[in-house]
């Protein structure tokens, strides 16, 4: 077990069991009167401990795919299985519980609660999961320490730089020891230097055993992943292991 408590893979990703299984995933919605085919039958597996980058031009469906993996959207057809559980048709309450326990989200715009301090932001999912008092506080501090922000625990988001806010967001994503961390353009709002620091943090996170799927335009971030899925027009164009 690493300092962050993520479930470390004890074997290589290739040999481990599939954590995510996506089968023939279709997502259509309407924009005004026009139908939009965001995903047109996407299938792939992600094994425990993998670090996957999904890349492609804007509108290719990569964020839609991430939303479906994160159980915050429902597919038109197809299935998503995470850790052995079909999650594409979960009722709302069960889906919420699943997101709380199994998924860690990192958003492009950080989306921290502006009224809460850095530590309180990290504590929020833990509080929801029922972790109380000192244990919750200690774990929040441990995670802030992991992302290098222990000294800024009492700062509110408005008092933190973009890179620092994203680090807090990563600490928050790790709060309940998720099976899977999903990141949507995590370097999109950061300058090059801060983006590089973030890439290193994701690398360290994966090295500590966390399974990561990241959607990005950032070539440097994509290069840091061990596997890259190229998408275009709602389909997988290429799926390659780069390391």
């Amino acid at each position, binding site marked *: 077990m690493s300092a962050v408590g993520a479930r470390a893979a004890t074997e290589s990703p290739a040999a481990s069991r599939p954590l995510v299984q996506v089968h023939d995933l279709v997502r259509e919605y309407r924009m005004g009167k026009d139908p939009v085919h965001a995903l047109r039958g996407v299938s792939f597996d992600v094994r425990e401990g993998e670090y996957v980058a999904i890349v492609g031009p804007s509108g290719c469906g990569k964020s839609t795919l991430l939303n479906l993996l994160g159980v915050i959207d429902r597919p038109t057809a197809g299935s998503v299985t995470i850790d052995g559980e079909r999650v594409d048709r979960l009722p709302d309450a069960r889906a919420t519980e699943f997101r709380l326990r199994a998924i860690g989200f990192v958003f492009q*715009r950080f989306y921290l*609660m502006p009224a809460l301090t850095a530590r*309180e932001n990290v504590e929020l999912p833990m509080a929801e999961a029922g972790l109380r008092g000192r244990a919750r506080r200690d774990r929040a501090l441990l995670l802030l320490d992991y992302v290098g922000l222990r000294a800024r625990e009492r700062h509110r988001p408005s008092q933190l730089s973009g890179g620092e806010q994203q680090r807090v967001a990563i600490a928050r994503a790790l709060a309940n020891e998720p099976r899977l961390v999903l990141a949507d353009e995590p370097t999109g709002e950061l300058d090059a230097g801060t983006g590089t620091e973030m890439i290193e943090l994701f690398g360290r996170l994966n090295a500590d055993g966390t399974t990561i799927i990241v959607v990005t335009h950032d070539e440097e971030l994509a290069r840091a992943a061990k596997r890259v899925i190229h998408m275009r027009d709602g389909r997988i164009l290429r799926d390659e292991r780069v390391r």
Partner: protein
Amino acid sequence: MILSLAAASLLRHRARTMLAILGVAVSAAMLLDMVMLATGMRESFGSLLLSQGFQLRLAPKGTLPFDTEATIAGADSIVAILRARPEVERVSPVLGGQLHIMTARGAVTTAALGIEPAVQGDYELVAGRHPTGADELVANDALLAAIGRRVGDTITAAADYDPQLRAMAGTRALRIVGRVRFIYFAAEQRGAALPLGTLRSMKGRDADRRMSLAMVRLRDGADVERTRALVEHLVPRAHVISIAEAIQQVDERLSYFRQLAVILGAVSLVVAFLLVTTLVTVSVNERIGEIAVMRAIGVRRWRVVAQIAAEAAAMVLVAMPLGLMLGLVTARYLDSILARFPGLPERVDFFLFQPRAAWTALGLLAVSGVLSAVYPSWRSASLPIAATLRREAVG
């Protein structure tokens, strides 16, 4: 954590929160005043009627006490019959009339009550003593001020004025022996009380053995309603009124006040509801992205609703003591104005604070305030998460 978020959200827009709290406080004050008005007069009138312990009143058949100038004949025998009843503790006969008091500037007319000082229940002595002698009377401040006299002075008063002869009738010299406060008189109404026999003799033959009213106090444990029926049977020419019936009569006469109070109270409740709903809706719309993120990271829907309801509850809870104070101050001010309402006893309170009614009203306001937050918060917590985040990202 929910409370921290709720408090932080309220503090984020301090001015808006303060204005909303003031708005709810004003609504609370209005609701409280209307509840006090709707029930206050009734309770206050009941207390006033019972203040001297007389549960029954005999008035001429078909009238209410002092509603007309009608009187009951054979008053002395009626009083004797009543006093002989074992369940009756005290009977106080009263004859109503007018006195014209001569002053240097002309005659001053005043209401006058002929009473039996030992059993009277119409006034409270402020200074001096009761009018036990045949040529004595007591007067209230309004009368003393109007005639420019004080306790100890002697006045000349007439019980009647003949317009054809343009002369006073039943003139008599009376000594003022006490200063009193009449219980059932309107504000600024001039009044005097003198022995029943004295007033009767001044009024002449028409008033002989007559009374306008008799008040009856029963002994402890006596059944008021049964005694009322019995007295009515014994004195068929009188209308016997219990406190309950008197209150019912008052209720009927003041139903407009009550309806007004109920309508305005309901309006203030609706205003508070809409105010909180508007504020919560605005606040929620500003935080729609935050709420979507909370849902995305696994915060349950009811927890989001609870947080926003806690914000509404906090506003209402802060507003309620303010509303209570404002309501009481306003009620006192309005009461002082309405106390001058012609024909109503000064001592009747239009706005009577009754803790149970007040807490019920404020509790209702608190519940409606919290409920008003439920719909907008539930709606925002039920929006599709992915689509909301996408819109927020684009926006």
